[in-house]
């Protein structure tokens, strides 16, 4: 197979790109460091003093020694609620337990007592969705205080609110995905149902509590005065009520028990794709910063990116001489086969139908698809419209929507307008979606938006003649709005993606995702490829 050659040389552009990108990465790392501290040093210390283990350490203990942990959306709720809910109060991700990849949902009790905000629920649900799709057993490390009451209207009532998490638990259990909980703290009211709806439950003596109504509610409702331990302690639930199946003396013991439970799941993993020997890319992923840079208006050859992502930098390019603004081809990442669609400029009709054709190839061959998004949109103008860009771009959207193979998206630059649709944006439910720190996501760029909005104002009949000062104000306001809302941090805070990753991590992250998906590709029948 052809090995991609690199034309990248260390020149002033490359070097200045690196410097600028380095600053972006430093911001990302700074923010990651912030959320790694959870509720802060003081609360962490108090947590430890109570014999409790910090959430990430619990996960370290739970997963197989030295195995990867694919953490998702660490910057959820970033800059929301005064930036006081790091990680949205819950750490989620995929880790190997006894050799089995499991979805792990772990409350951080140092963050607002582990209570649920809208983003907490969203993150929880998203992890469950991923578990469902990738067929992962779910492990809940429960240490939470239920809904954050001041936000209850955004947490409790709607379809995708708290109730949805329990709905998912029940449905997953019914579909053969084990639901396992360890209770490290209080589980009151709704929280009680995380363990109660689990297939197996471990409780930690002394700190684990489960009760539908806590002592204050019991007193208010039936005038019974009782302490929490008597009402819903681990010992009571393990020996009297049977709500808990295992009583652990310490958190570590509980985690060990979880490992034993998973080891005894009688779980079978089937690999359905043909793996190759893993090899590193020939070209260094560390050079991605100098190639991509921070200015979305500066184009780069996306093949340089692919060359730093795929095994051996090998790439079997499809239709290289046709529709060249969309690069399509086959490759392997960490030994897993993958079809890649990557933007190399504005999407024209030819590029759109080429992409649709390529997706059909992947679908027929059971090859997962990776979208590398860097797209301002589909081509506009008379020529484009007369050439049927609307129907041709629709073909790509059709193909993206109906591909049965797992799809993955990484936003490596702009993700604007219909380009987002054609390249499998969040609305098209790729299995995982990650963004780079230089990414922008919006209906359009701030420049275009300002032009559109000011033109609209100028042509408005209802609002009368316009002052230039008002136009200026609108222009400024619109730019500000779009600039703020299109940053990757705005997006990731709201769970529009599964996390921001450093460019050189992409290969590893996608490698992990592909390996999960590889177990699930079992299409009942083949489909033809319609040449377009």
């Amino acid at each position, binding site marked *: 197979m052809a090995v991609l050659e690199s034309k990248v040389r260390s020149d002033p552009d490359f070097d200045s790109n690196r410097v600028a990108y380095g600053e972006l990465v430093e911001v990302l790392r700074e923010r990651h460091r912030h959320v790694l501290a959870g509720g802060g040093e003081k609360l962490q210390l108090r947590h430890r003093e109570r014999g409790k283990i910090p959430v990430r350490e619990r996960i370290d203990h739970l997963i*197989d020694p030295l195995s990867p942990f694919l953490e*998702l959306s660490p910057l959820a709720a970033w800059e929301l609620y005064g930036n006081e809910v790091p990680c949205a109060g819950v750490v989620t991700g995929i880790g190997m337990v006894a050799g089995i990849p499991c979805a792990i949902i772990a409350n951080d009790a140092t963050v607002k007592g582990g209570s649920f905000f809208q983003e907490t629920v969203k993150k929880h649900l998203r992890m469950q969705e991923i578990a469902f799709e990738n067929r992962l057993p779910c492990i809940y490390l429960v240490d939470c205080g239920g809904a954050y009451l001041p936000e209850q209207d955004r947490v409790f009532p709607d379809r995708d609110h708290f109730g949805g998490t329990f709905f998912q638990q029940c449905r997953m259990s019914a579909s053969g995905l084990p639901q396992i909980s360890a209770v490290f703290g209080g589980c009151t009211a709704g929280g009680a149902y995380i363990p109660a709806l689990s297939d197996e439950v471990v409780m930690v003596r002394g700190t684990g509590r489960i009760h539908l109504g806590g002592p204050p509610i019991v007193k208010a409702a039936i005038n019974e005065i009782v302490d929490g331990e008597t009402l819903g302690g681990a010992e009571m639930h393990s020996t009297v009520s049977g709500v808990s199946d295992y009583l652990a*003396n310490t958190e570590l013991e509980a*985690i060990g028990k979880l*490992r034993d439970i998973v080891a005894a799941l009688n779980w079978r993993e089937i690999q359905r794709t043909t793996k190759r020997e*893993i090899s590193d890319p020939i070209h260094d992923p560390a050079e991605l910063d100098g190639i991509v840079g921070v200015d979305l208006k500066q184009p780069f050859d996306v093949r340089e990116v692919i060359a730093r992502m795929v095994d051996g930098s090998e790439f079997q390019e499809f239709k290289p001489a046709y529709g060249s603004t969309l690069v399509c081809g086959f490759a392997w990442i960490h030994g897993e086969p993958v079809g890649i669609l990557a933007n190399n400029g504005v999407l024209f009709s030819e590029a759109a139908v080429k992409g649709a054709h390529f997706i059909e190839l992947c679908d027929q061959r059971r090859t997962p698809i990776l979208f590398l998004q860097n797209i301002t949109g589909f081509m506009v103008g008379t020529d484009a419209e007369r050439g049927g860009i609307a129907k041709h771009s629709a073909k790509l959207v059709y193909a993206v929507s109906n591909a049965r193979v797992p799809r993955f998206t990484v936003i490596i630059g702009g993700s604007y307008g219909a380009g987002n649709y054609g390249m499998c944006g969040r609305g098209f439910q790729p299995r995982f979606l990650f963004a780079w720190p230089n990414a922008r996501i919006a209906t359009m760029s701030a420049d275009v938006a300002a032009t559109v909005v000011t033109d609209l104002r100028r042509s408005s009949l209802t609002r009368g003649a316009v002052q230039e000062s008002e136009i200026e104000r609108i222009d400024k306001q619109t730019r500000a709005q779009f600039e703020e809302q299109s940053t990757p941090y705005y997006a990731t805070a709201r769970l529009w993606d599964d996390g921001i990753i450093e460019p050189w991590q992409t290969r590893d992250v996608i490698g992990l995702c592909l390996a999960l998906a590889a177990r699930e590709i079992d299409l009942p029948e083949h489909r033809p490829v319609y040449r377009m």
Partner: protein
Amino acid sequence: MISSLLIANRGEIAVRIMRTCKLLGIHTIAVYSDADRDALHVAVADEAIRIGPSPARESYLQTDAIMQAATRAGADAIHPGYGFLSEKPDLARLCVEEGRVFVGPSADCILAMGPKIGSKLIASRAGVPSVPGYLGEDQSTQRLSGEAERIGFPLMVKASAGGGGKGMRRVFQREDLTAAIDLARQEAQAAFGDPSLLIEKLVTRPRHLEVQVAGDKHGNVVHLFERDCSIQRNNQKVLEEAPAPNLDPAIRVKLLDRGVALARAINYDNLGTVEFILEEGSSDPWFLEMNTRLQVEHPVTEAITGFDLVEWQIRIASGERLPVLQSDIRQSGHAIEARITAERADQDFRPDAGRIVGYREPPDLRIDSGVGKGSEVTLFYDSLLAKAIAVGETRDTACTRLASGLREFSILGPATTIPFLVDAVEHPIFSQGNATTDFIAEAFPEGWKPARPQVRLARATAALLMLDALPAHEQKPSAWTTLAGFRVLGPSGGLSETRLLAIEEERAIALTVKVRSDGQRRVFDNDGEIALEIRSNGNTVEVDSEGRILRGVFERTGGRVHLTLAGETCDIGLEAEAALLAGAAAGAGGSGAVLATMPGVVAEVKVSAGEMVEVGQVVVVLESMKLFSSLKAEIAGIVTDVSCRSGETVMVGKRLVLIEPRNGS
């Protein structure tokens, strides 16, 4: 010559005898007890016959069983090896009666040299002096005391029928004599069924020298020079060499002459060893005893003379003449043998047992071994596993080769004396050739302890080797198995941390392995980082510690890593903390968490982290309502956390101490 030979022995000597048999085209027949069904000597023999249960007295010491085995296998001849029945005249006699060849001296020779007293009388008649002493039949305390006065103090009172240190007492002054005689008598009676004692001068700082002799059935006797076996512990030889270092030529002549004289006196007709003792400063080697068999240390003589002594034994027993004349026997070079035993040299050479999980011999030494990978070392028999023999043109070369070869000799599983032997060989007293039988006491006055300069490194290496072998890593490779410790937040400091407990004998040492975002693994213990990188290939490992590269051999079994690294042998159980605890919960035999039973003040904390505790051991004393209650460990294990201090006020139910159960308990 004989065509089939039954070897009435086990271990390295059985294997060694068979090696010569193979060269001579002799069919080999091993015997084995139940414990030895899978032993090496059984595996290398052409056939093997079971002779009884594991205890030696029910198998290898059963003359009848041996003879029956010989009949069953149709053996022409029996070789007794050393120990067991080798110096029992019965076996030799029965062989003659049944028309089999006994590969050893005649029963008469064995009988003559068996009794301590009798053999000395024979020696005396042959002009070979013994250690001054009293060997008389008058066993009255009065007579013994009188003789003691004549010999002078210090002296030794010994059981006449004894051996191996039983019934042996040293007496330094007159006042202690009577008590020593009484005790020695009791011990002699208990151990040998015979209270007879003899008295000998206690020879100070002696050397142990011995002469290898060989005689045939045609009246020829030769010597094959001497050996020095002064390095001993508990009266067992540890290092043996030939020739004896720093020995005055005149003394050597006297020594060799005396050895040959005694052998001639009894018409000795096979290989044997005449043992002498040479007091410091003396030029008069005194006869000690004669061993009418092949010695453990015969390889050093083979090494300097170039003869195969087992072949000699077989040929002589078959009636052949000695293959050479005395004038044709020459020695060249120097050879040293180290006996490797399964013992804790740091615990007064207490025997150790267990399965040998890894075994690798050094390339440049002669190794006579009775074990290999998978061998089970039991406490039923002698603890000798193997002998390492180094040869050099000079003694210095031999010493160097022996030490470096021993460092490369990897026996993983039960503790061996290898690290001790290295230290002994390299000790100046030995390397300068000035050792006496007091060597160990003089060289290691506090008892030998391993220096263990690389123990942290070895532990860290073991931890990484353990992590390399986790089940997940054995699956078909994917990013999930190859991206060790990957974390999305890794570059931001959110590193993977694996916490392990390294369990060594009485201690548990906490280790943390962190994975940097570039995949490099770093190991920490309580003293900080242990810098290392490892590369393993099969069962060998290369450890790079800040540019210093060390090589090791390892084996993993269950949750343990057995490792030899730069002469450092360690045997470490490694467990993820959580995994260790899950097992504890499953046991349900009690909780490892010691909780405050009442609110009160901690009066005393009796344990500290890392300490081993037993069930029922008091760990904390709690004062409450003017009452002191002792909180006890419900399980045996290692204290991993002490979360209270003396004087602290605690609430009821607070966990004061956490004990993690020991593996398997």
